[in-house]
């Protein structure tokens, strides 16, 4: 079993390293086959591992090598494979495999495809490291590793200005989260006396509540940056400058859920902290609502889906706030599949539309690309929570547990409103892309994407359709073990689904028919629309309160201080002082005898 986990972990790294090192020697196809097949093997092994862990009941832990040597603070490269890790392994490797397969075709004409594949595999390794690590510091290695790969992949087309700025922004914003996370790790060490998860959880009873509160609070802020929660989400929409497979893998399915994973991993400590849980619940609800509203008014295909991701991450955060960690994990899993499906379908759409991102300018698609059409439909329906698709089970579970939690009512209402928002922006996206004829989209020749690009879509569609149904009993059971039995009246159980479905149908009709009233509505709501389209002015706000003052301090204040104060009174001042001193001394030497006699007299007087 240890061997299996090590293979799962290091195969992607091997693929990445080999393809990068020999990128000049071999043809590009070799690297593509190598990376894809290595991740594929990893994926198969992950299924085996998940099955073994599930049947064996109980985590395995092993140490690979020593890392930090300091008496009283020795940290090993150590791994812990429990059911949470196994689930994450399956999700990460499966989505990663699909994305690898997709990229071999999608990025076919890019001259740096080998670098691309290599980064993708490296990312997979880092993500696996993150989810399998047995101590906090090693988890941080994976955490930073995925951040780095995200940075490199957002800026993959680094000759263009947009990706450069976006990758820089992503790194710096994530670094702000890391600042809190690393502080949290340090505080955790001081208060728990160890960084190993097993020891932390064993000693949690001995630790005062406010120390645990500090640790978890700092972790939460770190998770907010990684998982794009409101306030620290600003990097995610910009990250869409990266290639679409990257958006699918990193900025939808896996990396952005690392924050959720961290909190789930740390749940034994987080569980008892009520104040913090309430905060998390509200932050999650606000994020879900915020991103849902903003997605309504965006026109960039990828950005709409990015805000949708942000919104769904909000749901996961809500589940964590409601201490329903299994529900959060459940939504993480289903979301990974259907959002990856949605993004890859969007990639197919974009490549068919010759690189057009603006949903208003899409050519008339109709049913000319049937597979893409159906895949996008499956993805959208799973996203809004249509009955019996995967999203339905997980989202319902979250809303039900939120309803049951002590502070539940307001977040629940916000959550239900966000369900409606989800349905509306999804339908808007879908109709704008595929039924643009009504708006006078150009009728051009469109062929379906190549077969090899559709295979991963099909692979992802299977779990998007069915995984919810199969896994729901297990996760519901786990949630009930954690919180308490969920009893809800029947009508309330169906409320979110009903709202979602009716919104979907009503707005499908409205958008499809292009009701004139809609245009008037938008006109009437002009300021609101502008507010939403500008993403609630977060970027502008940060520009005014952080970026501009920083630039002013760096560009104007500090250099002024350097020349006018430090140099003036420091070295130059000293030099001037000395020269003035010597000028004075030289003035004393007049050459007149009576002056010297006078000095002698003075000195002897002092001496006496």
């Amino acid at each position: 079993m240890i061997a299996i986990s090590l293979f799962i972990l290091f195969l992607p790294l091997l693929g990445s390293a080999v393809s990068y090192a020999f990128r000049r020697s071999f043809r590009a196809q070799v690297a593509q086959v190598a990376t894809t097949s290595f991740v594929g093997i990893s994926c198969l092994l992950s299924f085996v591992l998940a099955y073994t862990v599930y049947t064996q009941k109980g985590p395995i832990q092993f140490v690979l090598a020593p890392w930090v040597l300091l008496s009283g603070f020795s940290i090993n490269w150590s791994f812990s494979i429990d059911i949470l890790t196994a689930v994450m392994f399956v999700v990460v490797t499966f989505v990663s495999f699909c994305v690898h397969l997709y990229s071999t075709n999608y990025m076919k004409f890019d001259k740096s495809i080998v670098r691309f594949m290599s980064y993708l595999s490296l990312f997979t390794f880092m993500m696996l490291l993150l989810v399998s690590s047995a101590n906090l510091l090693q988890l941080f290695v994976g955490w930073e590793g995925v951040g780095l790969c995200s940075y490199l992949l957002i800026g993959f087309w680094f000759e263009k200005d947009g990706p450069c700025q976006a990758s820089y922004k992503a790194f710096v914003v994530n670094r702000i989260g890391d600042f809190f996370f690393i502080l949290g790790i340090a505080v955790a060490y001081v208060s728990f006396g160890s960084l190993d998860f097993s020891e932390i959880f064993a000693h949690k009873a001995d630790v005062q509540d406010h120390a645990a509160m500090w640790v978890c609070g700092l972790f939460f802020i770190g998770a907010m940056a990684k998982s794009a929660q409101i306030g620290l989400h600003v990097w995610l929409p910009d990250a869409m400058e990266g290639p679409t497979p990257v958006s699918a893998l990193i900025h939808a399915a896996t990396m952005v859920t690392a924050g959720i994973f961290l909190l789930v991993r740390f749940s034994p400590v987080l569980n008892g902290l009520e104040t913090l849980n309430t905060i998390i619940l509200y932050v999650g609800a606000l994020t879900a609502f915020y991103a849902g509203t903003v997605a309504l008014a965006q026109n960039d295909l990828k950005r709409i889906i990015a805000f949708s991701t942000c919104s769904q991450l909000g749901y996961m955060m809500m589940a964590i706030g409601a201490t329903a960690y299994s529900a959060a994990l459940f939504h993480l899993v289903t979301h990974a599949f259907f959002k990856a499906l949605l993004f890859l379908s969007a990639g197919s759409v974009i490549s068919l539309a010759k690189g057009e991102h603006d949903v208003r300018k899409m050519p008339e698609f109709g049913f000319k690309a049937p597979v893409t059409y159906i895949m996008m439909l499956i993805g959208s329906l799973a996203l809004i929570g249509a009955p019996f698709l995967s999203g339905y089970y997980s989202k319902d579970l979250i809303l039900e547990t939120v309803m049951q939690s002590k502070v539940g009512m307001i977040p629940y209402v916000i959550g239900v409103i966000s369900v409606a928002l989800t349905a509306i922006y999804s339908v808007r996206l879908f109709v704008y892309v595929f039924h643009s004829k009504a708006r006078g989209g150009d009728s051009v020749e469109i062929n379906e994407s190549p077969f090899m690009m559709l295979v991963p879509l099909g692979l992802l569609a299977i779990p998007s359709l069915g995984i919810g149904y199969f896994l729901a009993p297990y996760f519901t059971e786990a949630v009930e073990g954690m919180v308490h039995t969920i009893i809800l009246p029947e009508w309330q159980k169906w409320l979110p689904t009903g709202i979602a479905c009716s919104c979907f149908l009503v707005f499908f009709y409205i958008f499809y028919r292009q009701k004139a009233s809609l245009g008037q509505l938008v006109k009437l709501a002009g300021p609101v629309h502008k507010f939403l389209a500008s993403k609630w002015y977060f970027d502008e706000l940060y520009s005014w309160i952080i970026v501009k003052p920083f630039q002013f301090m760096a560009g104007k204040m500090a250099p002024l201080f350097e020349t006018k104060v430090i140099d003036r009174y420091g070295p130059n001042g000293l030099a001037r002082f000395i020269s003035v001193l010597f000028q004075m001394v030289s003035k004393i030497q007049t050459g007149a005898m009576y002056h010297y006699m006078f000095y002698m007299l003075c000195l002897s007087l002092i001496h006496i």
Partner: protein
Amino acid sequence: MLKEIPILTIIILLPILGVIFNTLINKDLAEENSKKVSLWTSFVTLALSIFVACQFDHADGGFQFIEYTLINKLMGFEYHLGLDGISLWFVLLTNFLVSICILMSAYLIKVNVRFYMILLLMLQSFLLAAFCSLNLLMFFVAFEAVLIPMFFIIGVWGGERRIYATFKFFLYTMTGSILMLIGIVYLYTQGETLNYQDLLLLKLTDGQQKWLFLSFFFAFAIKTPMWPFHSWLPEAHVQAPTTGSMLLAGLLLKLGGYGFIRFALPLFPVGALYFSKPIMIISVIGLVYASLMAFAQKDMKKLIAYSSVAHMAVITLGIFTFNIFGLTGAVYQMIGHGLVSAGLFLCVGLVYFRFGSHRISDYGGLARMMPVYGVSFMLLTLAAIGLPLSIGFVAEFFIILGALKVGFVWASLVALGVILSAVYMLSLYKNIGFGEMNTPHVQGGYDLKWYESFSLFSIVAIVLACGIHTFPTQSIEASLTPTVSKYLEAVK
């Protein structure tokens, strides 16, 4: 067997032997032979010091390979050498970096190569003497002597404003040193000895300790350099030739931190404790200030110079936490920063050699034009940011832990470096590595030659190795434990 060979003396004198050989070379063949002689000398020295490191007992915190000869009892002048778990790594760092520098200078320096090599070897010898010496006077002499070769390196091969830079550099450091000399003389009058191990046992009153600490503090603070005594550094870096900058950032600055840890802290614990809070405040100011300055620079070398100031501020903060985490982190970060900043200056020097400009705005798209260069520069940039798997991460985490033991506020202030370093370093990389290759300056650049990539990747390899398995920390910790226990006493 090893006990009978004065191995440290051999290591220190080998470069001098190289200098002698260099002076004997026939004029006609001077350049080629000088390169070979110097390269061989430095490699042999490096090999010997690696051998010493293998023989070294890492669990023992005391001094090893001790050599002692009394020269003049009246002045307390002894020839006293020894290695402990801290100086061992500085000796290795010195020999490694000087070897790389000689390799690089062999083709980066165009005029008067022989003299340049002589200076580098002299510098190496003085640095080794400073790191190995266990006599305060001997340390002081070596500490000062280091200035001389550096003065000529900047003054002869420097840029346009080299004269101003050298004088600023020299005056600044001399001012501090004079104060330290006064302190040393006073210390001698108190204890009649300048032997380090005897001085450790010397009983000083609290008042004496405070004044003595201050006199040492200025010398080391200027050398480190701490804010606000840093303004010689950017000037010196910009004017210095590439390998000069590498040694300046990689080794000379470390003398300051080393001085704090070796002398100022263990000898005057009460004094250091008394001034610790102001020094930590200065460090935090220096961190933020230098980061701001770095962000706004238009000159690559100045940017990296200010980033050095920022990193050294983190180190001084770590030192003055007085606990094992902060101190170990500080020593480890000094090694890490020595490697990384030298690597970054080399990166800058390599493009300067090709295109003749330090201005950031003259560059763009280097990652496309010179891919291997782009990769190595990126790796060093990430190491400077302190990403995990690099030596800087472990070191920074230790320092944060150490600061946390003093107070949460300190930890959060020193952790600001996590954000700030990313802000200025990635901004630099974005501007010169990414973007389009449309600037007129950057045309026809060729990728790294094998010796260039060898130098850069050997630095990267060590940075990674020390980050993945922190083998040096064991001996560093062992040697720092006595200092830390002194502080626990002083606090009481």
